[in-house]
């Protein structure tokens, strides 16, 4: 493993995921919903990449493609150097033991009729990670311990746990097979404010303790994403519009959408709020069924010029890994 330390765990190349819209008795295809339309990024080992955007921007679809839950329309997903989009189902299963998913809703993502212990242990059985019953029990108890749950609670059922504890169960399940990549899809948005910090800290501690664990952290809350991520990719209508280090994102956002998104999030500090730039966007996110031509943000953009509707601006590297897709910057 050591020689692979510095390489990318994930390399996504020109990923496209179109969902057909069908109509009529013959399910004739009439259009495509371009949920993801040409996304490129890399995720290094030990790194956390945040994927932010508003609903319908395709961030969850990217996550699902990475896990092999969707077959992309086009593009490559290199996981540990191999393109998983071409893998047959059986081989995909093997790869999946090395990746995991933490879901948004800790209420619906746990089977109410399964005990907490068997929820956490199920991946071990599926991927045949343990040989004996004793080993299985030890591993489950160890996982409970790791996420800060009392191992004596393995026989309890999900309804006996609070929201925060349920999410810990979800984290333990994700860790079961000792994955290298965890896709966290809005893992804290369903939790109360004072509980969110507990889960964020847990995820950070786990990454500090585990060698080579990477997170793809998908969320709409930019302050949370910026807190946990090393780099952040901002998505709008199926494309990445800006990708940069978390620090740079707040200090020097370049894409007008990123700037609007940042300014839309109030900071809990009236002294800071007094002097902040406020950009209130006009209109709403267009339908991905019929995106505007050129830069899909141009109808709402406060910096748009006629050229913006001509062609899709590519992501340009403007130095230090800061990439932005806008012809005006």
């Amino acid at each position: 493993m050591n020689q692979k330390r510095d390489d990318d765990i994930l390399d996504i190349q020109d990923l496209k995921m179109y969902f057909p819209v069908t109509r009529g008795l013959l399910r004739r295809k009439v259009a495509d919903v371009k949920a993801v339309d040409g996304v490129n990024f890399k995720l290094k080992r030990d790194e956390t990449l945040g994927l932010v955007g508003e609903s319908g921007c395709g961030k969850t679809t990217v996550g699902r493609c990475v896990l092999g839950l969707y077959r992309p329309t086009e593009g490559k997903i290199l996981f540990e150097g191999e393109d998983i989009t071409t893998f047959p189902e059986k081989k995909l299963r093997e790869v999946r033991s090395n990746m995991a998913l933490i879901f948004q809703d800790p209420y619906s993502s746990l089977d109410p009729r399964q005990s907490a212990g068997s929820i956490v242990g199920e991946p071990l059985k599926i991927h045949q990670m343990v040989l004996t019953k004793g080993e299985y029990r030890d591993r489950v108890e160890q996982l409970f311990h790791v996420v800060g749950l009392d191992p004596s609670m393995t026989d309890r059922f999900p309804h006996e746990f609070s929201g925060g504890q349920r999410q810990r169960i979800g984290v333990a399940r994700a860790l079961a097979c000792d994955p290298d990549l965890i896709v966290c899809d809005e893992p804290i948005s369903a939790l109360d404010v004072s509980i969110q910090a507990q889960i964020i800290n847990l995820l950070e501690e786990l990454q500090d303790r585990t060698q080579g664990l990477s997170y793809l952290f998908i969320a709409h809350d930019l302050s949370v994403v910026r807190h946990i991520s090393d780099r952040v990719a901002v998505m709008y209508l199926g494309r990445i519009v800006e990708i940069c280090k978390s620090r740079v994102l707040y200090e020097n956002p370049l894409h007008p959408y990123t700037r609007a998104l940042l300014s839309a999030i109030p900071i809990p500090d009236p002294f800071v709020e007094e002097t902040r730039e406020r950009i209130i966007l006009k209109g709403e996110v267009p339908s991905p069924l019929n995106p505007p031509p050129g830069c899909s943000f141009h109808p709402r953009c406060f910096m748009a010029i006629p050229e913006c509707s001509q062609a899709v601006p590519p992501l340009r590297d403007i130095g230090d890994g800061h990439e932005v897709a806008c012809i005006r910057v």
Partner: protein
Amino acid sequence: MAELLKVDNLVTQFKTESGLVKAVDGISYYLDEQEIIGLVGESGCGKSVSQLSIMQLISAPGEIAGGEVTFEGQDLLNFRANGPEMRSVRGAKIAMIFQEPMTSLNPVLTIGQQLTEMLQLHMKMNDDAARKRAIELMNIVGISSAENRIDDYPHHFSGGMRQRVMIAMALSCNPRIIIADEPTTSLDVTTQAQLLELMKDMVQRFRTSLVIVTHNLGVVARYAQRIYIMYAGRIVESGTIKDIFGKPRHPYTIGLLKCIPRLDEEEGTKLVPIEGLPPNLINMPPTCAFLPRCSYRLDKCAREPWPPLTPVNGNHFISCYADTKEK
């Protein structure tokens, strides 16, 4: 500014099979004319129930067990919930905007029918006048080509647009107070910003007062003048936003501010979570509800009943025995 609404020692409780739940346990606050206040807390802290109580929208097994709600010189709680006096206040003089723009509109009635209903009921307008006014209101809240959209059904509208309709409805009878209960929580960030700005403009333009009920401290910091922090059915701290955010004094408020990631934080900032869980409100002990999670606790806290709100500085109040100034 003159005081518009004064809530005194309001108690709302729910009698459940497992015990008595005091969802709102003796809260007092006031609202001045043309003021924006924030009521902040986590789920289950009683912030929504307190507002529903003011409107007398609590149904069994819940009941308003005590307190006074003084509005325009009268105690609203003296009115029968379905009596004509309460109906002339509810929706007209005090309007409410709910969290779910998807469910708070009736799906089988057009937007126009729902907007004009209020105008006809409270303002006694005839059909034509109400329709004209409804179109005007839709224009005011930024719904373009209102003449064509007034006969659309709620499902033709996006979430943000539906919430605009809700705002139009709330404004329709020239209310003195608008209560917005998590008005933007289920919406996208940029839409949230649009709607909050709209609400702020409307409050100024129509000279109403606004109560924002939310869990989002950022929203309050940006829009409110004063805030009340609630925990387990009580107000634990109140003051101007500069008091609360600049010099928070209640352990819960201090904890809350340390556990939320800030957009402008330094790299490597660690969050300090509030350990433990919010309490179960069934048969609460008489002591401070935050005690089990509190890092400032004193021996006194476990012996004495819940501390009353006491002033620390001018208009800044906390309900705590501990000296939190030092830390």
